[in-house]
């Protein structure tokens, strides 16, 4: 049964987000990883580990996966991130990180500005829910820390 829900809820939890929450893609540990990093949001307990396999002269993300537990926004964001980054070169991944970061902060309006976000633009639904921004950004910050070879843990707080 699909129940009547208000507009803001429907914009935040779009079908693609609920789909990736229930069936996260690339949701596995990676044995042949070249780098990985853990992320944690102490406020709500969201936590994950992002695994990357960098190949071809240290410039391409050949494979990316994650493991972790948290809310729907968090899990869908991590899952969609792995889809968006697989096969991309690192410069493109960093550009996408920056565009996604600006999207969450409402500094990038996907309807008015050229971008490479693709499906990721569904996260503009978060504009009505600023307290949930960190749920969507945790996986991306963790991925960036893995790329930069940081040790330790990335925290949202």
């Amino acid at each position, binding site marked *: *049964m*699909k*129940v009547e*829900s*208000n507009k*803001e*809820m429907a914009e*935040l*939890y779009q079908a693609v987000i*609920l789909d990736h*929450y229930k069936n996260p893609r690339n949701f596995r540990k990676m044995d042949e990883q070249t780098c990985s990093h853990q992320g944690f949001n102490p*406020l*709500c*307990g*969201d*936590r994950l580990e992002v695994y990357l396999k960098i190949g071809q002269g240290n410039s391409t993300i050949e494979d990316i996966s994650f493991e972790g*537990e*948290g*809310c*729907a*926004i*968090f899990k869908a964001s991590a899952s969609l991130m792995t889809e968006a980054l697989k096969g991309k070169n690192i410069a493109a991944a960093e550009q996408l990180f920056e565009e996604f970061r600006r999207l969450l902060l409402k500094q990038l309006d996907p309807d008015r500005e050229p971008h490479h976000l693709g499906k990721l633009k569904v996260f503009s639904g978060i504009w009505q*829910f600023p307290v*949930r921004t960190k*749920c969507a950004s945790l996986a991306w910050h963790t991925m960036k820390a893995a790329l930069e070879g940081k040790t330790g843990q990335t925290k949202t707080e």
Partner: protein
Amino acid sequence: MKEAELNRIRADFPNLGCQVHGHPLAYLDNAATTMKPRQVIEAITNHYRAETANVHRGLHHLSVLATKKYEGAREKVVRFINAGSEQEIIFTRGTTEAINLAASSYGGHLLKPGDEILVSQMEHHSNIVPWQLVCQSRGLRLKVIPMDESGQLRLDRFRELLTERVRLVALVYTSNALGTINPVEQIIEEAHGMGAVVLLDAAQTIAHLEVDVQELDCDFLAFSGHKMFGPTGIGVLYGKENLLEQMPPYQGGGEMISQVTFAKTTYNALPYKFEAGTPPIAQAIGLGAAIDYIESIGFAQISEHEELLRVHASAQLARIPGLRIIGTAARKAAICAFSLEEIHPHDLGTFLDQRGIAVRTGHHCAQPVLDFFGLPATTRASFSVYNSLQEVDLLAAAIEEARSFFL
């Protein structure tokens, strides 16, 4: 409680009448803070509007008036918890500062290296971290009384841990994360039998049960104004006079001194020795008004109504598929924490908020409790005397809707 009486109480709280996302507010986050009745708001407003002055300083009319009201609030606290005298009531910023005061001044000076402090596994962080700090600086040892799967204290383990090395037991009276009401009378008696003093964190108890410190025979008791219909920024540390007398000041400044020279400073008498600087005057007056308000309803009526809410909420929530209540102790306050299969508390919290239902989601500043149950977070509905059975039904119906939405 009759509906007319409930409506009369609700009408005292202006904030309860607001709309949230197009729905009437259902405020079920009372363990975080309670709403304020107009009587409290008016007492605070009146101080700033017509009676502003510092206390214990001036000879002028307004200062005398403010001092009378401020000390009047202290007298109300004495009566409210049946303390021995005004000397035993120290105003603080809240429960957290009250516990820090006791930890720093009592733990930091009257306990010796090697002494042990017992806390329970269900403490709020504010009754863990101050003791960890003093343990580090004084070479004391912190030990933890475990709980069982229902969220009840393991009294058998308490008795094993309670040796003559234990000099202090710091225990939560009512758990904010589970709702458990601990058998504090028994704990106090047994701790005293071993010569240990007992501090009770009564933050979640003070607006819900009658607290009589002389009958309990606790040595310290801490609580906050804002969880009992009063303002933020005010709390109380009750301490037995003979203990407070032995304790050195917590902070230095004005008010807490008797005489200051560069060679030597002597301290003021109790309770002023522990109240450095200009105190939270308006907040104390607001707390006094909150006590009057609670007494005007009476604990008999408060307890009866909240028990009704607790029983109804437990039954309604238990019927929801995949819902697990976290904290099923035999003696519980009207606090219902739960987890919902496949739906994260933050998603549920957002969903409920869109229907005007305010609940808390997260670890409730009690991470060891969540670790024990293997959960990163829970959703918590906590009730007060102004909540209605209809609000419980609204919550249960909205959780059912959330299941349809997310699953």
